[in-house]
């Protein structure tokens, strides 16, 4: 635990991530501006600095950019976190059953994983979104679907090694059932890689969600989504650089924080995963 608290990547990454999460959560207290209300008299105001009416300026419809970035953070972070939780839940369950039951189920699941990995994630995601629509629920579903494979493979591999260890054998001889084996012996031993995967995947999910929204296949206007803000700002590059710059910095910060945290956790928790 002390090594976790002292690792520079974990500290820096954790702090960046915490800052963005706190700022997004506290959005209604940090700014009184409405992220959705247009004001045509106030269009395309440049950033004015802290304490001013529009610290980060306004967009093409005169909406306050600070308010939009902070409220957009709430959406992006909650969507990404939900997707990671779902992906991890499904992936762990699948990996456990594949590893413990083995046989045809195992073959089937691992082939399915191969099949899914053959598609570029974003292509699969846009195909599905195109068919089932662009609601927030659909978006979370697509993100989760894209992420379960990693957990399933990792947990399955862990189960296969742990299953053969003496202490699991001993527990089984003493009459422990499958559920008890999973809960007491197998899951605790796979927790570290799951945690590492989860924090790196959080970065991927934020990127994927904002990428889909950027293409117009994720959250829909007028929602203050980071990807959407970037797409809108692209048309104003020559006269209002801040429109596209600000949300991009927000996305990069989250991704940087989550990546650093993931790498740091990998170093500390699971030396075998180190590349």
């Amino acid at each position, binding site marked *: 635990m002390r090594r976790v608290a002292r690792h520079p990547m974990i500290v820096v990454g954790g702090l960046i991530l915490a800052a963005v999460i706190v700022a997004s959560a506290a959005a209604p207290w940090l700014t009184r501006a409405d992220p959705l209300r247009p004001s045509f008299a106030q269009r395309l105001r440049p950033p004015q600095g802290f304490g001013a009416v529009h610290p980060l300026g306004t967009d093409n419809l005169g909406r306050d950019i600070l308010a939009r970035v902070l409220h957009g953070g709430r959406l992006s972070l909650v969507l990404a976190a939900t997707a990671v939780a779902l992906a991890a839940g499904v992936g762990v369950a699948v990996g456990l059953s594949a590893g413990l039951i083995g046989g045809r189920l195992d073959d089937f699941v691992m*082939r*399915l994983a*191969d*099949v*899914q*990995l*053959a*598609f*570029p*994630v*974003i*292509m*699969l995601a*846009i*195909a*599905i*979104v*195109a*068919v*089932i629509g662009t609601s927030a629920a659909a978006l979370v579903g697509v993100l989760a679907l894209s992420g379960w494979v990693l957990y399933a493979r990792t947990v399955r591999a862990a189960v296969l090694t742990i299953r053969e260890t003496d202490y699991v054998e001993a527990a089984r001889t003493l009459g422990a059932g499958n559920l008890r084996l999973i809960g007491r012996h197998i899951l605790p031993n796979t927790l570290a890689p799951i945690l590492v995967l989860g924090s790196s995947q959080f*970065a991927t999910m934020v*990127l994927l969600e*904002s*990428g889909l929204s*950027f*293409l*117009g*296949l994720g959250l829909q206007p007028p929602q203050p989504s980071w*990807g959407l803000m*970037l797409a809108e*700002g*692209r048309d104003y*590059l*020559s006269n209002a*650089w801040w429109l*596209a*710059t600000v949300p*991009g910095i927000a*996305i*990069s910060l989250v*991704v*940087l924080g989550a*990546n*650093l945290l993931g*790498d740091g956790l990998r170093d500390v928790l699971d030396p075998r995963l*180190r*590349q």
Partner: protein
Amino acid sequence: MRAYLLRRLWQSAVTLVGVSVLVFVILRVIPGDPAKMLLPEGAPQAAVEALNRHLGLREPLWIQYALFVRSVVRGDFGQSFQYRAPALRIVIERVPATIQLALTAMALTVLAGVPLGILAAVRQRTGWDYAGTVIAVLGQSLPNFWLGIMLVLLFGVTLRWLPTSGFGGWPSLVLPSVTLAAFPTALVARLTRSSLLEILGQEYIRTGRAKGLGEPRVVLRHALRNAMIPLLTVLGLQIGTLLGGAVITESIFAWPGMGKLVVDAIFFRDFPVVQTILILSATLFVVINLLVDLLYTILDPRIRYG
């Protein structure tokens, strides 16, 4: 070796069958009533029914799947709704642009990522190493759609050095390929560094140094060649990243490749084109990774899979 080859071929074939099932389910089963989408709104129920029958959509699912596979194998991916032409032809016309972009990005990745990784490894724990790590971490964290926009802002809008969109000559290739290469370059640099560091600690490297070989020869000839193997796997897997990244990069720079085509096709609900691109890119990915696996056995004579 032979058994391994056969097993890998079999696995790849099974994966491709899975690919076809998945595409069939996503684009044929879930959308429900394609006839309704094809016909103008408010078309009479009889017309919808007739078209459904004509398209074979009233047959049991497994027969529909069999028909689907048969036509795909024949190279018939259906007619593009948007262009009123065979979907396969529409897609193939866009392939060269994507390949040009992906190959340039791949070349940039190797030419920048590998030397950066070598430099960081041989100058471990110096300013070079830390600078390389920072560049690599940033490269992996900047979203490529944002990086692309910022490059346009800097080199296109502010400095006016390079064209910001379109297709023609190498100047228009610079910004899209740099955008596309950023992420894999960072990955390759990190991987080169760590795998080289591991190998530089080996006994035979010490032997090489002890017998008086120069450092460049030790690093480049003895260490790097062994570090290439994990690198090759990752480069193989990057085909997927490049194809996926091309979707966004091509959309930003209006690059007329498959990536832009697939996004446009989605907005037109042009499912035959979407399906063609999904199947082609997945097949490409499976085939390239199969080739990479086979290349291993040539690169590393120790690998003889039973």
